[in-house]
């Protein structure tokens, strides 16, 4: 796949792939990201992977655009996507009414029963396209089309930490109490902000949600782990 490398200020470059969100583009971003991480290239300070791009911060006394172009070329030639390992994290969600504050809207718009909504949402495997926004937030792909509903017209000033929402083709968990406009269908007792300090969920990982009762929510005996599901 083609990519374009351009100067992004005086100490960063942007490597852009095709202008779309897709697994195909994600695979290319991930190949480059993993390749850049594997080797300590002199002058590369940090790498921010996203849906269809990588932002590379560099030390301008040690590296320039030309040098970065040859690094990227080398990595893209050498890293095979199939050689990369995959991991999965399972996150408990309580979908009961006390947490699913937008249940009625979701039922009206999807024309599904709540059992169906829960079953569809918790049976898909979601791809972590990227991390960003705030620590612990995962940009997930792979939501079943039957659950595509628009976000709220007016965002709520405060969404409780752990709330899981739907917004068009996206689903995701708020890792902290912040304002937001997603339709809330449940809540996890897992503190994703705290979890992000010990379990490093990576772009390219997979997430599965499993339903729990409100009693299990209260007990909160969950310690999600990153489990290897492919490769080594």
């Amino acid at each position, binding site marked *: 796949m083609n990519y374009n490398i351009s100067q992004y200020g005086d100490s960063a470059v942007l490597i852009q792939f095709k202008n779309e969100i897709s697994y195909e583009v994600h695979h290319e971003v991930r190949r480059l990201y993993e390749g850049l991480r594997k080797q300590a290239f002199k002058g590369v300070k940090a790498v921010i992977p*996203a849906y269809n791009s990588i932002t590379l911060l560099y030390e301008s006394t040690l590296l320039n655009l030309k040098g970065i172009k040859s690094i990227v070329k080398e990595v893209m030639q050498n890293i095979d996507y199939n050689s990369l390992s995959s991991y999965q994290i399972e996150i408990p969600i309580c979908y009961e009414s006390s947490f699913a504050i937008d249940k009625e809207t979701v039922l009206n718009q999807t024309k599904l029963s709540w059992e169906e909504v829960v079953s569809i949402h918790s049976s898909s495997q979601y791809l972590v396209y990227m991390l960003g926004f705030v620590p612990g937030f995962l*940009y997930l792909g792979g939501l079943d089309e039957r659950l595509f509903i628009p976000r709220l017209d007016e965002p709520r000033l405060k969404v409780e930490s752990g709330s899981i929402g739907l917004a068009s083709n996206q689903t995701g968990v708020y890792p902290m109490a912040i304002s937001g406009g997603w339709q809330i269908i449940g809540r996890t007792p897992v503190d994703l902000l705290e979890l992000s300090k010990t379990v490093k969920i990576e772009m390219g990982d997979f997430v599965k949600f499993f339903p729990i009762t409100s009693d299990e929510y209260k007990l909160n005996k969950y310690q999600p782990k990153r489990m290897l599901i492919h490769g080594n």
Partner: protein
Amino acid sequence: MEIEVLNPGVSTTIQDLGRVNGLAYGVPYGGAMDRASAVLGNVVLGNPISNPIFECTLVGGDYLFKGSGHICISGAPFFVRLNDESIPYNTKVKVVKGDVLTVKSGEIGRYLYVSIKGRLEADEYWGSYSTYEVARSGGYKGRSLKKGDVLRVKKGSTLTYISKFQTPVIENPVIRWSKGPEYHDFSTVDLKLMDNRQLNVSNDSNRMGYRVDGLKLKGTSTGNIISSGTFKGVIQVPNSGIPIVLMSDSPSTGGYPRLGVVLKEDLDQLAQVKPGGAFKFQYVEL
């Protein structure tokens, strides 16, 4: 030595030079808003430049020293007193048990730094001691200081003592910027509006970003972009048409068109512009 917070001012946090390891995980760079002044304080005291320091915003507050040691004030030229006597900037100053440091706001500038000889104890988060309040992590308990907090300073490694420096706090700075990834999606009218015009840092500005008052751009015809990497210095233009310069606690990704990027060298000067303070942009080709 210990330092007790008698009055924390508007917002005083512990900062260092920030973190790069978390950018792929949504963790901002963080760190001192005016890096040059932060480095300067540590250099004057002979500390490693990345040692944690106090970053006082606009009104610094009052601090009681419960032991003896050395401090250095750097950054914004505020009203600073040690037991009612003025003390010099960018200079090693001796403090003894019972001394009280008072910091009040000044005519210009936004961030003042108090560095302490030795090593100020702080919590680590992703390899840095910078406070990141959004994640309640780093620095002192992941928050800005409160009355009654007691911070400890340990003996640290000693480097060379250097004496005189210039801080980046000036009136009406000219902030140079270069092309961002979506620069070419903006109209020539918008691009013309940016430069040689008196602008102000909005009151609605903080460690995450500075909104620019005095400009309303039309924006791009393509609108928001697919979320992509951002960092300190990036000039984003949301739908409102009012540009925002991302600062130290900038989210690591964003979806607004990125018109430009402020030159790294000019970031400390911009950081020091007060809410309502004036500056100008100037475009440069790299």
